[in-house]
């Protein structure tokens, strides 16, 4: 069977019933003119429909329906009587909270949880080095004159390459104790690298006391 025949044979029942219109009707008609196989299929389907229409379920007769209606009337009357006299069924869902109240309740719950976490939010634990240097006043000095005793290097490692180059974490490093432990050559080397990064703009060197 060709693909066109298979496609159009799906429309043959509609064609038989006269329900095809427009494009499909023209297509099926044109195809049937040139395809004996599909004409044969149409004829066979028509015979099946005719056979079905010619053999309907026979009416069982008035006696059957009289008996049927008597029985059904009794059952219906009994059902109606039970519905009238019996206690009204109290369905459990009538006493439940309506489902549309669920959305506001959920919103309120989420809001409470959010506010709880916002209120109890604590700062992240500081690195031990930072804890030592930052306490008791973690903020930067307001003027350059006030920062003689303490100095910080704020560095922002914004790319992977810079991070690879810098072995130490300079983001919150107190430079003075570090420099104090180094030899002069190492100190110059470190400062040179820091200045190079300062030129990139990836870190800021604040004044420090150790020279």
């Amino acid at each position: 069977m060709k693909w066109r025949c298979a496609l159009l044979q799906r429309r043959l029942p509609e064609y038989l019933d006269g329900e095809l219109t427009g494009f499909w009707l023209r297509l099926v008609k044109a195809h049937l003119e040139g395809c004996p196989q599909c004409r044969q299929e149409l004829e066979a389907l028509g015979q099946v429909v005719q056979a079905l229409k010619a053999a309907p379920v026979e009416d069982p007769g008035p006696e059957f329906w009289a008996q049927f209606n008597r029985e059904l009337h009794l059952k219906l009357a009994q059902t109606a009587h039970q519905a009238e006299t019996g206690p009204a069924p109290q369905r459990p869902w009538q006493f439940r909270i309506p489902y549309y109240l669920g959305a506001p309740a959920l919103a309120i719950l989420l809001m409470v949880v959010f506010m709880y976490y916002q209120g109890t939010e604590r700062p992240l634990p500081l690195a031990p080095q930072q804890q030592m240097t930052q306490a008791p006043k973690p903020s930067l000095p307001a003027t350059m004159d006030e920062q003689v005793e303490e100095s910080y290097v704020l560095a922002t490692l914004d790319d992977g390459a810079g991070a690879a180059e810098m072995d130490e974490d300079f983001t919150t490093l107190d430079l003075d104790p570090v420099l104090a432990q180094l030899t002069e050559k190492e100190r110059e080397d470190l400062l040179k690298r820091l200045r190079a990064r300062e030129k990139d703009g990836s870190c800021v060197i604040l004044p420090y006391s150790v020279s």
Partner: protein
Amino acid sequence: MKAGNDKTMTDYQLVARAQSGELPAFEELVHKYQREIYGLACRLVSDAEEARDLTQQAFLQAFVHIRSFRQQAQFRTWLFRIAINQCYSYLKTRKKFGDPVDADEVNLTADDSPEREVITQEERQRLYAALARLPAKQRAVITLKVERGLSYEEISQVLGGTAGAARVNYCQALKTLKKYLKGEDDYEMAVRTTPAAVARIPRR
């Protein structure tokens, strides 16, 4: 509308009265549709006695749930849906507990039918046997379409799904029925390889 004009009342009015608790209005609906529902049940279960019981069950269910019918669809299609669900339940039970119906015992048409000259008794038996072999849904589609004259849209309301699905189902049902009536399936069965035949084929 007055009670004297009941015969001219539409389904909408009868259903409205039945919903307000008037049993005569519902019985009017029963008289109007009992033959169609019975015919549908007969086609689906292929058993006249069961079809009668299922028809009564369908009307009882409709009466119990008439208040929940919101008149958005036709009462007729709603009733068909209830009847088909009853038949499906029955067929499921029969399949589970086993109560095969012999197609020869199904005699739903009286001998004095005017179609007797057109279709012989033997052909009728073949048709019923072929219908009984169809899946229940295809039987329902073919009955609703050919005998009850429902559109694909209405069939989709009764059976669920879309109008396109109803069309495809109807087409498939007709083709299968044609195959059964022409005995093409017997030929297929004959040429189909059996496990014994497969076992005889030497393996490489």
